[in-house]
């Protein structure tokens, strides 16, 4: 190995981010391999062979090849009422090979068809965890072969389909980007510092104090990943990512039969940063008491008037409303409109399509997407990264400036307004990266103190001649609250139908007596008509910024829709929305509806 290469290897270990010219020759000279990573070596060698020689006679050769490999270690512990339900440790490696034929303008991607190539092994799969050179080359070889054939097949279908269109889109299929080389030092997972099984038992035992609960579950989920990305353009990425989560869900039923639930979540970038068991127990105790209070609370009635969202609620609300609209990517060409219709119904239609340079928020409000921010007011943010999943450097993107829409989040899939990625291509594990939020900051140049905002809220209520108004402290997340897939599906089924109309699920809704400020919890409320459009009439905004940390769901039907806010550490993409309290002049709150189920025939058995 040359001295220059060794030096560069050392430089890259110091987290140097090297942007390289497109020239492949230049790339191969600087590729650092100081730590003798056989995985990287196998990926490079098979990449070179495929790039130089993979071609079927009389067919287009690939113009772009991409190898992705994810080495993932997971520790998952589930406990209920102090008893261990499950405890697993796993280590796996997955690969995904993507081959594009055609060119950047028109290629084999962005096309959905109902049939296609079915190879016998596929372009994705599980690979050896030993870091073994020979077996990885064998796996990459087959996957690349399959991916290439898949793309040829897809491309011919796409071209045939395009022939039937009067005016095919002139938006390119894939953006050209500077290759990036970023080889972080290999970091081993470290979650041995704490006894997670004991913590999960201890923490979940806090809920044993609430015999009214039907069921509850606490999950500790620790993930340590090394992500590799190599492209034929010269990008070489090796980064380590980790995530630590505590998630809890609990449910019960009110005396009138209404099903009620609550949840808790805490996310950190490293296991050591998770709150100690004592703190989580305290929080769960609060959550338990809140759920019992909900159980005893009166039914919500219909209401139209001022609503104050506290910061955590604002964060979740924004996550739901922004999800479908912040992406500037083109829609895939589809063999029919069914796909679009489904996305619309799930609240997946962008409200910001074609709205560039127009007012979307009141003056003074800005929205920034910024994965380069590591923390906010000392709190680590979840949406931090140096490069996105497509190997594009993270960028600060001013989305809305002084109320005017200026930018959209972009992956390498171009759109009508923007053709370059701005480093927001994200996916769960090895799913196809798409433009998605990472860290998002919703800010006002004119944020009020808590007291000022409360006073403005009371004034608005008085002007509207209301005895009481509504405060929302927390929004719901059914993905965390429910332990059973069928219960979750029931709730999602009910809410998904209204997502396009801006139906949102609040969890902690209080009515506040205007005269004396007394708060009373209500149950069964839904918000309706809550779309981005409703934020053009913001009455007031606080300065009590808080980071709402959540897992963006990448599940089919959820990704890119309002429902993407309902994710969990199991496959969700770590995301932070920083937002303050938000006062809206007129929100429609719908009272409790539906037909409550019968109470259990038998009372619950004793829990202690």
């Amino acid at each position, binding site marked *: 190995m040359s001295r220059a290469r060794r030096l560069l290897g050392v430089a890259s270990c110091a987290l140097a981010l090297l942007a390289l010219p497109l020239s492949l020759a230049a790339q191969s000279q600087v590729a650092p391999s100081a730590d003798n990573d056989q995985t990287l070596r196998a990926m490079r*060698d*098979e990449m070179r*062979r*495929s790039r130089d*020689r*993979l*071609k*079927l006679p009389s067919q287009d050769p690939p113009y772009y090849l991409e190898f992705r490999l994810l080495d993932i270690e997971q520790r998952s512990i*589930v*406990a*209920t*009422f*102090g*008893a*261990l*339900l*499950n*405890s*697993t*440790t*796993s*280590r*796996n490696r997955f690969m995904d090979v993507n081959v594009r034929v055609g060119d950047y303008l028109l290629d084999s991607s962005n096309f959905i068809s109902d049939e296609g*190539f*079915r*190879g*016998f*092994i596929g372009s994705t799969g*599980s*690979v*050896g*965890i*030993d870091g*073994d050179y*020979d*077996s*990885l*080359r*064998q*796996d990459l*070889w*087959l996957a690349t*072969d*399959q991916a290439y*054939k898949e793309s040829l097949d897809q491309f011919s279908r796409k071209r045939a389909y395009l022939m039937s269109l009067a005016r095919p889109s002139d938006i390119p299929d894939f953006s050209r980007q500077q290759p990036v080389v970023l080889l972080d030092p290999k970091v081993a997972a470290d979650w041995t510092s704490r006894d997670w099984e004991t913590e999960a*038992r201890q923490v979940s035992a806090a809920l044993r104090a609430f015999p009214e609960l*039907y*069921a509850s579950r606490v999950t500790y989920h620790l993930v340590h990943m090394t992500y590799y990305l190599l492209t034929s353009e010269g990008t070489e990425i090796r980064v380590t990512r980790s995530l630590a989560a505590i998630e809890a869900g609990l449910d019960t039923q009110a005396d009138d039969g209404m099903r009620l639930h609550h949840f808790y979540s805490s996310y950190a970038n490293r296991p050591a940063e998770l709150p100690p068991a004592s703190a989580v127990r305290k929080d769960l105790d609060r959550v338990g008491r809140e759920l019992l209070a909900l159980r005893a609370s009166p039914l919500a009635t219909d209401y139209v008037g001022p609503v104050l969202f506290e910061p955590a609620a604002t964060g979740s609300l924004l996550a739901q409303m922004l999800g479908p609209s912040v992406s500037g990517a083109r829609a895939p060409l589809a063999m029919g409109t069914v796909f679009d219709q489904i996305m619309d119904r799930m609240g997946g239609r962008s409200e910001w399509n074609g709205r560039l340079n127009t007012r979307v928020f009141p003056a003074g409000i800005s929205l920034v997407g910024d994965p380069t921010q590591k923390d906010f007011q000392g709190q680590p943010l979840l949406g931090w990264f140096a490069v996105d999943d497509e190997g594009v450097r993270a960028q600060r993107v001013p989305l809305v400036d002084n109320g005017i829409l200026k930018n959209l989040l972009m992956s390498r899939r171009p759109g009508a307004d923007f053709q370059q990625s701005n480093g927001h291509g994200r996916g769960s594990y090895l799913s196809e990266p798409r433009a998605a939020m990472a860290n998002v900051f919703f800010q006002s140049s004119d944020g009020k103190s808590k007291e000022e905002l409360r006073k403005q809220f009371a004034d608005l209520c008085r002007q509207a001649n209301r005895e009481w108004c509504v405060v929302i402290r927390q929004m719901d997340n059914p993905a965390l609250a429910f*332990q*059973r897939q*069928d219960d979750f599906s029931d709730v999602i089924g009910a809410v998904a139908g209204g997502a396009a109309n801006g139906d949102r699920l609040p969890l902690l809704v209080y009515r506040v007596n205007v005269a004396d400020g007394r708060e009373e919890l209500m149950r069964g409320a839904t918000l309706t008509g809550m779309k981005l459009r409703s934020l053009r009439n913001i009455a007031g905004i606080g300065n009590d910024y808080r980071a709402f940390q959540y897992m963006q769901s990448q599940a089919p039907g959820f990704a890119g829709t309002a429902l993407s806010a309902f994710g969990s550490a199991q496959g969700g993409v770590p995301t932070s929305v920083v937002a303050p309290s938000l006062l809206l002049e007129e929100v429609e709150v719908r009272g409790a509806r539906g037909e409550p189920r*019968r109470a*259990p*025939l*038998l009372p*619950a*058995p*004793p*829990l*202690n």
Partner: protein
Amino acid sequence: MTLQTTRSPLFLSLAITILLAVPTIALPAPQKGAKPERAAKSAVVSAMEQELERSLAALRTADPPAYFINYTVTEQQRAEVQGSNGALLSSQETRTRWLETSVRVGGYELDNTRKVGGRDAGYQASFGTAVPLDDDVPVLRRAIWSETDRQYRGAAEALVKIQTGKEVKVETAEGRAPDFSREQPQIWIGPTAQFQLDRRPWEEKVRIYTRAFHNSPAILNSIVSFNALARNQYQASSEGTRLQFGDLKYRLELFIQGKAPDGMDINRYANFDWIDPADAPSDKAVFARAAELTKEMEALVAAPLVEPYAGPALLTGRAAAVFFHEVFGHRAEGHRQKDINEGQTFARKVGEEIFPTFLSVYDDPTRARSGSEVLLGHYRYDDEGVPAQRVTLVQSGVLKNFLMSRSPLIGFPQSNGHGRRQVGLPPVSRQGNLIVESQRAVSNAKLREMLIEEVKRQGKPFGLLIDDIAGGFTFTGRGAPQAFQINPLVVYRVYADGRPDELVRGVDIVGTPLVSLTKILATGDTPEVFNGYCGAESGSIPVAAVSPAILISEMEIQKKETSTDRPPILPPPGHDPVAERKAQ
């Protein structure tokens, strides 16, 4: 056996069978030779008993009343080590406990499980739920309570639908059988199974085994997996059944994939099953099997494609075992004679000759081994808590019986211990160890001579020797033709003129069961075992089939549907002449 009707805890630790005043057919004798091992009752069973008592009191008087409640907790400890192409893929151990609850409303004659117009009213409201690994009785009870309520509601709704459905009146004779059989409660509190396993030696083994496959360019992909499974079942029912028992299984599987030049996918597979760790296959035995698979793969890739053909065929024991499992065994499952959507091939053929008279077939889950080989379809109690029984299905060619779960047929009112399921699904009648016996057994060498004679007699140029069958599928439903298709993996042409046997590929065996089964001419004299997992409506369950080789006068084969995916464009990285040249 003791006559006893009380559920006094005193008797719970005793391995006894309680007799209620219910008419029964032959009751199984306690397993001969098996030492009845007793053990302490687990906290799981205690939790189930406590909740059972409470639920019964309330749900028996509810509207509609529940007449049967059953709780099953399945505890599984599983270690799995997988390797591929010379590297370790994964290695982990998991433990789970899963609770299933069954609540039946109505009565034994008509209950919520009745299928009306071929549809089931959706009585299974839950697949169950995970319950703690810790023996925490109150937490377990809470889960049982919640599941019981869920299942009761589902069952009550289903019963209302059934009772008000107008189709309930229009029924076939088969449909008039009761919905649930009355069975003897069983009490058996036996020892549970668990293992302590160091996975590291197996991690090294799967690396070495798959590395051996790497040497052949014909093998595109190889996977070897080792599995250890300790499974304990705990059960308590309102009829008084209390069961606790466990078993332990080890398995090693070898799987390789290749491709013929025309794109046809070719797979070879082998498995080793054992129960005693001392019986684990030696490296030598595994390498020998791997070498055979490799040789077969290399030969198959180069073998000519088969042309459609009908003529005599010889199935080796393992191939014949799969053939019987698919073609006969599935049609002998009792519930298929009841469901009006089913073809009911054998429904009205009891007492008739369906096989040549020299053949008898029985299913015997009480058998743990055949010779030195483990039988995967062995169990002590089925998943409805009925003791496993040997059932004679065909005696000297005459159909005698069906495999029965607790869903009775007219004339077959009792279960014979074949109600089985994958955890989470309701049990239906399934096979255990299907065993074929022959009174016209000749040596395998003689059988081959008979094949050649038959080929000559029919004036054919060759016959078929079918050596391995991957499995197949069989249509038992009424909507499809009553046909089966079987995918043999290793098929030779055996020429009448003495030429060496020729391996061919791309073969599917097709046929109709009633015809095929009568064309068996003779059998070999050595029973061979096929151990596998069988998938059907109640999920995937371990089964075995045992058969000697069989000679069939006429078997029809067709060309297999083939893949259009051509072999990889570039040579394997480890066998790339261009790269090797560069390296030099």
